[in-house]
């Protein structure tokens, strides 16, 4: 019986707002393309704050940021290629759906999930 609004924790961002956000690539991300066409992203990774604190506490230098590496699959590569800093998520999903003949909702879910994954790694920001 869930047809009435429940007292759930309010979501931070509405769906239409999320779809209207424009993803922007992190300028410190370096792209490399493999022979099979898929993209590998190289990005700086800082040590977690607690590691830095422990390192400092024991008198060690936390060191320079390491390099993270993320190999995208064919679909991830396609979506990454659509991020141009101007198109909102909605348009990226629509272009992705058109290119692969996907259902609009399916494409939106896939693109939104992918953006979340990239966002968690700091590879894209939303504006």
């Amino acid at each position, binding site marked *: *019986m*869930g*047809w*009435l*609004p*429940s*007292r759930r924790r309010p979501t931070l961002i*509405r*769906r*239409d707002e999320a*779809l209207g956000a424009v993803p922007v690539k992190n300028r410190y991300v370096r792209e490399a393309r493999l022979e099979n066409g898929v993209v590998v992203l190289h990005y700086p990774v800082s040590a977690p704050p607690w590691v830095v604190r422990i390192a400092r506490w024991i008198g060690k230098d936390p060191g320079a940021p390491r390099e993270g590496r993320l190999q995208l699959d*064919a*679909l991830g590569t396609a979506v990454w290629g659509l991020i141009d800093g101007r198109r909102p998520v*909605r348009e990226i999903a629509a272009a992705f759906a058109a290119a*692969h*003949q*996907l*259902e*609009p*909702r*399916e*494409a939106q*879910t*896939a693109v939104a*999930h992918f953006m979340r994954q990239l966002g968690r790694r700091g590879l894209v920001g939303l504006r």
Partner: protein
Amino acid sequence: MRAAEPTRANLIGWKELAWNGIRLAVPPDWEPGRIDARHLRLESESGPAMEVKWGPVRGAFSHQRYFRRLRTLGTAAGAVARCSPLPAAWEPALGRYDAKGFSWAGGGVAATGAIFYCPRRRTAGLIQFFHAPEAPADARRTAAVLERLHLPEERRGTHWAVFDIRAELPEGFRLIRHRFEPGRFTLAFASGRCRVELVRWAPAAVLLHDRDLEGFARSAAGGGALRFAAMRDEDPAAVEGQSPEPAGLIERLAANMGRRTVCRMRLWHAAARNRILGIRMQDRGVIDTALWEKVVKAYGLVAVPTPSDPHPPR
């Protein structure tokens, strides 16, 4: 004041939706947002658009009882629900049923709906259309949706059409599992010991980039234990796999006694739509060929509505 009849132009691109016996046609910008066995919530980009719940009724039906339940839930959720007359535009569509209107508002959302009961099918349901508290629901659009609402028919196969897949399952098959995740849709049914699983994968061009359909069926589609062969003269390209012959004494004995589980699977590549469709049927003893053919024949992709076809699907 009566709302104007929906015109042909208003119905361009409407989509067919059939789920667990219920059938309706919805505007092109509404997409299924939540799907349960007897519950559908459709959403547009701005949020929930429509919700329908239905189920069989045992014993006497009372609108009041359902409404009291709705009001209790509404109060708990911070919404105020009240009985209201059915919108005039809905009367032709809901006249077939014993229907009473209601509305509620709360938390920045409002909805207008109806609790309906069909004595012939002994099925009751609730349908509601969401809208902003300050703006009423679009009477013309909602009336057009209600006009095309059909409740489950008894002693008939069940029709399914959701997102881009459609299927027809013979009487007796019930939905046991469904999953819609990007790239893979699954509907699983059971009737006794017979299990039928319908799967749709996309985009096929990417999935078949480094392997053929048979390779895909063995690896990604879970047909590793089956013996596959390409189906000749099939358009679109298809492969079919079956459980291997029984090996060993115990398996042969089990097969002779009809205790061995057998499986048949077919995958085909709908290249024009960039999708792969698959059916897996599992049963004890033997697979019923007539049933298999019936399910295979009815499973496919929903036709894409074109501007030259202004009618919503019937």
